[in-house]
Protein backbone atom coordinates (compact mmCIF):
# COMPACT_ATOMS: atom_id res chain seq x y z
CA UNK A 1 0.00 0.00 0.00
CA UNK A 2 1.29 3.45 -0.91
CA UNK A 3 -1.28 5.94 0.34
CA UNK A 4 -4.88 5.69 1.46
CA UNK A 5 -6.99 8.75 2.23
CA UNK A 6 -9.71 7.28 4.46
CA UNK A 7 -13.06 9.03 4.34
CA UNK A 8 -14.49 7.25 7.36
CA UNK A 9 -13.27 5.46 10.44
CA UNK A 10 -14.13 1.90 9.41
CA UNK A 11 -12.09 2.26 6.19
CA UNK A 12 -9.17 3.55 8.25
CA UNK A 13 -9.49 0.76 10.84
CA UNK A 14 -9.65 -1.94 8.15
CA UNK A 15 -6.53 -0.52 6.51
CA UNK A 16 -4.80 -0.29 9.89
CA UNK A 17 -5.55 -3.96 10.60
CA UNK A 18 -4.44 -5.08 7.16
CA UNK A 19 -1.30 -2.91 6.92
CA UNK A 20 0.34 -2.76 10.35
CA UNK A 21 3.46 -1.34 8.68
CA UNK A 22 1.64 1.77 7.43
CA UNK A 23 1.79 5.10 9.30
CA UNK A 24 -1.20 7.19 10.28
CA UNK A 25 -1.25 10.76 9.00
CA UNK A 26 -3.39 13.60 10.33
CA UNK A 27 -2.07 17.15 9.80
CA UNK A 28 1.46 15.94 9.06
CA UNK A 29 3.14 18.62 11.18
CA UNK A 30 5.03 16.06 13.24
CA UNK A 31 5.27 13.19 10.75
CA UNK A 32 6.45 15.23 7.74
CA UNK A 33 9.21 16.87 9.76
CA UNK A 34 10.61 13.37 10.31
CA UNK A 35 10.08 12.35 6.69
CA UNK A 36 11.81 15.50 5.45
CA UNK A 37 14.75 14.87 7.78
CA UNK A 38 14.90 11.37 6.22
CA UNK A 39 14.46 9.71 9.60
CA UNK A 40 11.55 7.99 8.00
CA UNK A 41 10.41 6.66 4.66
CA UNK A 42 6.87 5.49 5.38
CA UNK A 43 6.14 1.98 4.12
CA UNK A 44 2.59 3.15 3.58
CA UNK A 45 0.33 5.93 4.80
CA UNK A 46 -3.26 5.97 6.05
CA UNK A 47 -4.54 9.56 6.11
CA UNK A 48 -7.28 10.19 8.66
CA UNK A 49 -7.86 13.95 8.47
CA UNK A 50 -11.02 13.44 6.37
CA UNK A 51 -12.59 10.72 8.56
CA UNK A 52 -15.93 12.21 9.52
CA UNK A 53 -15.98 10.55 12.96
CA UNK A 54 -12.63 12.16 13.81
CA UNK A 55 -13.76 15.62 12.75
CA UNK A 56 -16.82 15.74 15.00
CA UNK A 57 -16.66 17.98 18.03
CA UNK A 58 -19.75 17.79 20.15
CA UNK A 59 -20.12 18.37 23.85
CA UNK A 60 -17.77 16.13 25.77
CA UNK A 61 -16.21 14.50 22.70
CA UNK A 62 -13.49 16.26 20.71
CA UNK A 63 -12.65 14.31 17.53
CA UNK A 64 -8.96 13.44 17.19
CA UNK A 65 -8.61 15.22 13.83
CA UNK A 66 -9.96 18.58 15.03
CA UNK A 67 -7.29 21.16 14.15
CA UNK A 68 -5.75 23.76 16.43
CA UNK A 69 -7.36 26.40 14.20
CA UNK A 70 -10.77 25.12 15.28
CA UNK A 71 -9.76 24.66 18.92
CA UNK A 72 -8.49 28.27 19.04
CA UNK A 73 -12.07 29.47 18.60
CA UNK A 74 -13.61 26.93 20.96
CA UNK A 75 -15.36 27.29 24.33
CA UNK A 76 -12.65 25.77 26.55
CA UNK A 77 -10.55 28.72 27.63
CA UNK A 78 -7.21 27.06 28.39
CA UNK A 79 -7.50 24.83 25.32
CA UNK A 80 -8.16 27.87 23.14
CA UNK A 81 -5.25 29.72 24.78
CA UNK A 82 -2.81 26.89 24.21
CA UNK A 83 -4.04 26.22 20.68
CA UNK A 84 -3.20 29.82 19.80
CA UNK A 85 0.41 29.29 20.92
CA UNK A 86 1.02 26.27 18.70
CA UNK A 87 3.55 27.00 15.94
CA UNK A 88 2.07 29.49 13.49
CA UNK A 89 -1.25 29.95 11.66
CA UNK A 90 0.01 27.54 8.98
CA UNK A 91 0.81 24.88 11.60
CA UNK A 92 -2.52 25.42 13.40
CA UNK A 93 -4.47 25.04 10.15
CA UNK A 94 -3.03 21.53 9.73
CA UNK A 95 -2.00 20.17 13.15
CA UNK A 96 -4.51 18.26 15.26
CA UNK A 97 -5.12 17.47 18.92
CA UNK A 98 -5.05 13.74 18.13
CA UNK A 99 -1.66 14.08 16.44
CA UNK A 100 -0.32 15.94 19.47
CA UNK A 101 -1.57 13.18 21.77
CA UNK A 102 -0.22 10.38 19.53
CA UNK A 103 3.20 12.03 19.27
CA UNK A 104 3.26 12.31 23.08
CA UNK A 105 6.20 14.70 23.10
CA UNK A 106 7.00 15.77 26.68
CA UNK A 107 6.56 19.36 25.44
CA UNK A 108 3.22 18.77 23.67
CA UNK A 109 1.07 21.75 24.60
CA UNK A 110 -2.21 19.84 24.49
CA UNK A 111 -1.12 17.33 27.10
CA UNK A 112 -1.21 19.40 30.32
CA UNK A 113 -4.77 20.44 29.48
CA UNK A 114 -5.81 16.79 29.16
CA UNK A 115 -4.09 16.05 32.49
CA UNK A 116 -5.55 19.06 34.30
CA UNK A 117 -9.15 18.27 33.44
CA UNK A 118 -8.69 14.47 33.77
CA UNK A 119 -9.73 13.77 30.18
CA UNK A 120 -9.70 10.30 28.64
CA UNK A 121 -8.37 9.06 25.32
CA UNK A 122 -10.84 7.15 23.11
CA UNK A 123 -9.18 4.67 20.76
CA UNK A 124 -10.57 2.10 18.35
CA UNK A 125 -9.43 -0.97 16.45
CA UNK A 126 -11.15 -3.26 14.00
CA UNK A 127 -10.72 -6.33 16.26
CA UNK A 128 -11.40 -4.97 19.72
CA UNK A 129 -13.73 -2.08 19.02
CA UNK A 130 -13.55 1.02 21.23
CA UNK A 131 -11.35 1.35 24.30
CA UNK A 132 -11.26 4.31 26.71
CA UNK A 133 -7.97 5.03 28.44
CA UNK A 134 -7.31 7.40 31.36
CA UNK A 135 -4.68 10.01 30.43
CA UNK A 136 -2.22 8.78 33.03
CA UNK A 137 -2.44 5.26 31.64
CA UNK A 138 -2.03 6.50 28.08
CA UNK A 139 1.18 8.55 28.34
CA UNK A 140 3.91 6.24 29.62
CA UNK A 141 7.22 7.73 28.45
CA UNK A 142 8.93 10.14 26.08
CA UNK A 143 6.91 9.74 22.86
CA UNK A 144 5.58 6.49 24.26
CA UNK A 145 1.91 5.63 24.71
CA UNK A 146 -0.19 2.53 25.31
CA UNK A 147 -1.87 2.83 21.89
CA UNK A 148 -1.74 -0.62 20.24
CA UNK A 149 -0.30 -0.94 16.72
CA UNK A 150 -3.72 -1.61 15.17
CA UNK A 151 -5.48 1.24 17.00
CA UNK A 152 -6.43 4.77 16.01
CA UNK A 153 -7.12 7.61 18.46
CA UNK A 154 -10.69 8.64 17.75
CA UNK A 155 -11.40 11.34 20.33
CA UNK A 156 -10.53 13.10 23.54
CA UNK A 157 -13.32 12.63 26.08
CA UNK A 158 -13.97 15.41 28.57
CA UNK A 159 -15.25 14.73 32.09
CA UNK A 160 -18.87 15.32 33.04
CA UNK A 161 -17.94 18.21 35.31
CA UNK A 162 -15.70 20.72 33.58
CA UNK A 163 -13.76 23.24 35.65
CA UNK A 164 -15.38 26.62 36.29
CA UNK A 165 -12.16 28.36 35.33
CA UNK A 166 -9.06 27.19 33.48
CA UNK A 167 -5.86 28.93 32.44
CA UNK A 168 -2.83 28.01 30.30
CA UNK A 169 0.63 29.53 30.04
CA UNK A 170 3.93 28.47 28.60
CA UNK A 171 7.50 29.70 28.74
CA UNK A 172 9.70 29.76 25.66
CA UNK A 173 12.28 31.97 23.99
CA UNK A 174 9.73 33.96 22.04
CA UNK A 175 6.03 34.41 21.48
CA UNK A 176 5.40 32.28 18.41
CA UNK A 177 6.80 29.16 16.85
CA UNK A 178 8.22 27.97 20.10
CA UNK A 179 8.34 24.62 21.83
CA UNK A 180 7.74 25.03 25.56
CA UNK A 181 10.48 24.97 28.19
CA UNK A 182 7.60 24.55 30.61
CA UNK A 183 3.86 24.59 29.97
CA UNK A 184 1.15 24.60 32.59
CA UNK A 185 -2.63 24.38 32.96
CA UNK A 186 -4.48 25.21 36.16
CA UNK A 187 -8.15 24.25 36.36
CA UNK A 188 -10.43 25.27 39.18
CA UNK A 189 -13.49 23.13 39.85
CA UNK A 190 -15.96 22.47 42.66
CA UNK A 191 -13.33 20.27 44.32
CA UNK A 192 -10.54 22.84 44.12
CA UNK A 193 -7.47 23.42 41.94
CA UNK A 194 -5.82 20.96 39.60
CA UNK A 195 -2.34 21.73 38.37
CA UNK A 196 -0.74 20.03 35.36
CA UNK A 197 2.63 20.69 33.80
CA UNK A 198 4.48 19.61 30.66
CA UNK A 199 8.13 19.59 29.55
CA UNK A 200 9.18 18.86 33.13
CA UNK A 201 9.00 15.04 33.06
CA UNK A 202 8.87 12.31 30.37
CA UNK A 203 5.06 12.56 30.45
CA UNK A 204 2.61 15.31 31.44
CA UNK A 205 2.30 15.38 35.23
CA UNK A 206 0.00 16.67 37.92
CA UNK A 207 1.46 18.50 40.92
CA UNK A 208 -0.65 16.49 43.37
CA UNK A 209 1.20 17.58 46.53
CA UNK A 210 0.87 21.24 45.60
CA UNK A 211 -2.82 20.72 44.77
CA UNK A 212 -3.43 19.13 48.16
CA UNK A 213 -1.68 21.99 49.93
CA UNK A 214 -3.52 24.82 48.16
CA UNK A 215 -6.88 23.04 48.35
CA UNK A 216 -6.55 22.79 52.15
CA UNK A 217 -6.32 26.59 52.48
CA UNK A 218 -9.59 28.26 53.40
CA UNK A 219 -8.51 31.68 52.17
CA UNK A 220 -5.50 31.86 49.92
CA UNK A 221 -2.89 34.26 51.28
CA UNK A 222 0.26 35.49 49.61
CA UNK A 223 2.31 33.25 51.89
CA UNK A 224 0.22 30.25 50.88
CA UNK A 225 0.82 31.03 47.19
CA UNK A 226 4.55 31.29 47.82
CA UNK A 227 4.54 27.94 49.57
CA UNK A 228 2.41 26.49 46.74
CA UNK A 229 4.93 27.66 44.12
CA UNK A 230 7.78 26.17 46.15
CA UNK A 231 6.05 22.77 46.27
CA UNK A 232 5.36 22.84 42.52
CA UNK A 233 9.05 23.59 41.85
CA UNK A 234 9.99 20.73 44.14
CA UNK A 235 7.49 18.30 42.68
CA UNK A 236 8.38 18.54 38.97
CA UNK A 237 11.03 16.23 37.53
CA UNK A 238 12.74 18.22 34.76
CA UNK A 239 16.02 17.59 32.98
CA UNK A 240 18.53 19.95 31.40
CA UNK A 241 18.60 19.82 27.60
CA UNK A 242 19.13 22.06 24.57
CA UNK A 243 16.01 24.08 25.43
CA UNK A 244 16.52 24.84 29.10
CA UNK A 245 18.09 23.76 32.37
CA UNK A 246 16.65 21.74 35.20
CA UNK A 247 16.98 24.69 37.60
CA UNK A 248 15.22 27.14 35.29
CA UNK A 249 12.41 24.69 34.56
CA UNK A 250 11.83 24.15 38.29
CA UNK A 251 11.75 27.89 38.89
CA UNK A 252 9.45 28.59 35.94
CA UNK A 253 7.09 25.77 36.96
CA UNK A 254 6.42 27.39 40.32
CA UNK A 255 6.05 30.86 38.83
CA UNK A 256 3.62 29.71 36.12
CA UNK A 257 1.49 27.57 38.43
CA UNK A 258 1.16 30.39 40.96
CA UNK A 259 0.32 32.93 38.25
CA UNK A 260 -2.38 30.66 36.84
CA UNK A 261 -3.93 30.03 40.26
CA UNK A 262 -4.11 33.81 40.70
CA UNK A 263 -5.75 34.16 37.28
CA UNK A 264 -8.31 31.47 38.15
CA UNK A 265 -9.06 33.28 41.42
CA UNK A 266 -9.58 36.53 39.52
CA UNK A 267 -11.77 34.91 36.83
Amino acid at each position, binding site marked *: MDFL*AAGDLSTALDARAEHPEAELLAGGTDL*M*VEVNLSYHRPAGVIAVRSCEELLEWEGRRIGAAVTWARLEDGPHRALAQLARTIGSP*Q*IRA*AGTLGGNVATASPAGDGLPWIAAIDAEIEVASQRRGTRIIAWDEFFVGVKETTLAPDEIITAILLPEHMPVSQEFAKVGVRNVMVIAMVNCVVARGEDGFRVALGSVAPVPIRAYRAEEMINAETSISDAALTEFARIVSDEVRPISDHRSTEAYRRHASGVLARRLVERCLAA
Partner: protein
Amino acid sequence: MIVTFTINGEERSATVAGWESLLTVLRDNLGLAGSKNACEQGECGSCSVIVDGANLCSCLVMVGDCEGTTITTVEGIAHGSVLHPIQQAILDEGGVQCGFCTPGFVITAAHLFAANPNPDEEAMREAFSGNICRCTGYGALLRAFDRLAGDGT
Protein backbone atom coordinates in the same frame (compact mmCIF):
# COMPACT_ATOMS: atom_id res chain seq x y z
CA MET B 1 0.32 6.68 -7.40
CA ILE B 2 -1.19 9.41 -9.56
CA VAL B 3 -2.65 12.49 -7.89
CA THR B 4 -4.89 14.96 -9.63
CA PHE B 5 -5.70 18.41 -8.29
CA THR B 6 -6.59 21.88 -9.48
CA ILE B 7 -3.65 24.25 -9.27
CA ASN B 8 -4.18 27.92 -10.03
CA GLY B 9 -7.37 27.06 -11.88
CA GLU B 10 -5.84 24.33 -14.01
CA GLU B 11 -6.28 20.58 -13.54
CA ARG B 12 -2.88 18.92 -13.11
CA SER B 13 -1.76 15.34 -12.45
CA ALA B 14 1.53 13.93 -11.25
CA THR B 15 2.98 10.48 -10.66
CA VAL B 16 4.31 10.55 -7.12
CA ALA B 17 5.12 8.56 -4.01
CA GLY B 18 2.26 9.39 -1.63
CA TRP B 19 4.62 10.42 1.21
CA GLU B 20 6.42 13.08 -0.86
CA SER B 21 5.74 16.67 0.11
CA LEU B 22 3.45 18.83 -1.97
CA LEU B 23 6.34 21.32 -2.12
CA THR B 24 8.66 18.78 -3.76
CA VAL B 25 6.02 17.82 -6.30
CA LEU B 26 5.17 21.45 -7.12
CA ARG B 27 8.82 22.31 -7.67
CA ASP B 28 10.25 19.12 -9.17
CA ASN B 29 7.33 17.51 -11.02
CA LEU B 30 5.08 20.39 -11.99
CA GLY B 31 7.58 23.14 -12.80
CA LEU B 32 6.08 25.49 -10.20
CA ALA B 33 9.25 26.65 -8.46
CA GLY B 34 7.74 29.83 -6.98
CA SER B 35 7.12 28.19 -3.61
CA LYS B 36 10.51 28.04 -1.90
CA ASN B 37 12.17 25.36 0.17
CA ALA B 38 14.05 27.11 2.95
CA CYS B 39 13.67 24.77 5.92
CA GLU B 40 11.37 21.81 5.17
CA GLN B 41 10.42 21.92 8.85
CA GLY B 42 7.35 24.14 8.87
CA GLU B 43 9.30 26.97 10.50
CA CYS B 44 9.79 29.57 7.78
CA GLY B 45 6.61 29.77 5.69
CA SER B 46 8.44 30.28 2.37
CA CYS B 47 6.56 27.25 0.99
CA SER B 48 3.07 28.56 1.96
CA VAL B 49 0.27 27.58 -0.44
CA ILE B 50 -3.50 27.68 -0.10
CA VAL B 51 -5.12 24.22 -0.14
CA ASP B 52 -8.93 24.16 -0.09
CA GLY B 53 -8.96 27.56 1.59
CA ALA B 54 -6.32 26.80 4.24
CA ASN B 55 -2.89 28.45 4.24
CA LEU B 56 -0.45 25.57 4.76
CA CYS B 57 3.27 24.88 4.70
CA SER B 58 3.46 22.74 1.54
CA CYS B 59 6.65 21.13 2.86
CA LEU B 60 4.52 19.44 5.55
CA VAL B 61 1.63 18.41 3.30
CA MET B 62 1.85 14.86 1.96
CA VAL B 63 1.00 14.96 -1.70
CA GLY B 64 -0.99 11.73 -1.45
CA ASP B 65 -3.46 13.63 0.73
CA CYS B 66 -4.04 16.26 -1.98
CA GLU B 67 -6.20 14.22 -4.39
CA GLY B 68 -9.10 16.39 -5.58
CA THR B 69 -7.98 19.53 -3.74
CA THR B 70 -7.89 23.08 -5.07
CA ILE B 71 -4.50 24.71 -4.64
CA THR B 72 -3.29 28.29 -5.10
CA THR B 73 0.44 28.88 -5.35
CA VAL B 74 2.26 32.18 -5.79
CA GLU B 75 2.19 31.61 -9.56
CA GLY B 76 -1.59 31.97 -9.42
CA ILE B 77 -1.66 35.39 -7.74
CA ALA B 78 -0.77 37.83 -10.56
CA HIS B 79 -3.38 38.61 -13.21
CA GLY B 80 -1.44 37.50 -16.28
CA SER B 81 1.53 39.84 -16.56
CA VAL B 82 -0.06 42.43 -14.26
CA LEU B 83 1.10 42.15 -10.68
CA HIS B 84 -1.49 41.66 -7.96
CA PRO B 85 -1.85 44.73 -5.71
CA ILE B 86 -0.18 42.73 -2.92
CA GLN B 87 2.87 42.11 -5.08
CA GLN B 88 2.93 45.73 -6.28
CA ALA B 89 2.72 47.07 -2.72
CA ILE B 90 5.59 44.85 -1.54
CA LEU B 91 7.65 46.04 -4.51
CA ASP B 92 6.78 49.71 -3.96
CA GLU B 93 7.69 49.62 -0.28
CA GLY B 94 10.99 47.83 -0.88
CA GLY B 95 9.83 44.65 0.83
CA VAL B 96 11.97 42.39 -1.35
CA GLN B 97 15.67 41.91 -0.80
CA CYS B 98 16.87 38.35 -1.49
CA GLY B 99 13.27 37.42 -2.28
CA PHE B 100 13.33 33.95 -0.79
CA CYS B 101 10.53 34.67 1.69
CA THR B 102 8.46 36.73 -0.77
CA PRO B 103 6.25 33.97 -2.23
CA GLY B 104 5.24 32.92 1.27
CA PHE B 105 4.41 36.48 2.29
CA VAL B 106 2.38 37.00 -0.89
CA ILE B 107 0.34 33.83 -0.24
CA THR B 108 -0.19 34.62 3.44
CA ALA B 109 -1.25 38.17 2.53
CA ALA B 110 -3.67 36.89 -0.12
CA HIS B 111 -5.13 34.46 2.44
CA LEU B 112 -5.37 37.12 5.14
CA PHE B 113 -6.95 39.84 3.00
CA ALA B 114 -9.47 37.37 1.54
CA ALA B 115 -10.76 36.67 5.05
CA ASN B 116 -10.26 40.14 6.52
CA PRO B 117 -9.82 43.08 4.11
CA ASN B 118 -9.01 45.50 6.91
CA PRO B 119 -6.81 43.79 9.51
CA ASP B 120 -5.30 45.88 12.29
CA GLU B 121 -1.59 45.69 13.03
CA GLU B 122 -2.00 42.99 15.68
CA ALA B 123 -4.01 40.78 13.32
CA MET B 124 -1.34 41.29 10.66
CA ARG B 125 1.52 40.45 12.99
CA GLU B 126 -0.26 37.29 14.07
CA ALA B 127 -1.12 36.29 10.49
CA PHE B 128 2.51 36.68 9.40
CA SER B 129 3.98 35.02 12.50
CA GLY B 130 4.69 31.88 10.47
CA ASN B 131 6.58 33.71 7.72
CA ILE B 132 10.19 34.48 8.42
CA CYS B 133 12.22 37.12 6.58
CA ARG B 134 15.95 37.26 7.20
CA CYS B 135 16.58 40.44 5.19
CA THR B 136 14.03 43.22 5.51
CA GLY B 137 13.41 43.38 9.24
CA TYR B 138 9.67 43.23 8.38
CA GLY B 139 9.15 47.03 8.47
CA ALA B 140 8.83 47.40 4.70
CA LEU B 141 6.56 44.34 4.49
CA LEU B 142 4.28 45.62 7.23
CA ARG B 143 4.12 49.05 5.56
CA ALA B 144 3.08 47.36 2.31
CA PHE B 145 0.33 45.37 4.02
CA ASP B 146 -0.75 48.39 6.02
CA ARG B 147 -1.24 50.27 2.73
CA LEU B 148 -3.40 47.46 1.41
CA ALA B 149 -5.53 47.16 4.50
CA GLY B 150 -8.80 48.88 3.71
CA ASP B 151 -8.04 49.14 -0.01
CA GLY B 152 -10.50 46.33 -0.68
CA THR B 153 -7.84 44.22 -2.38
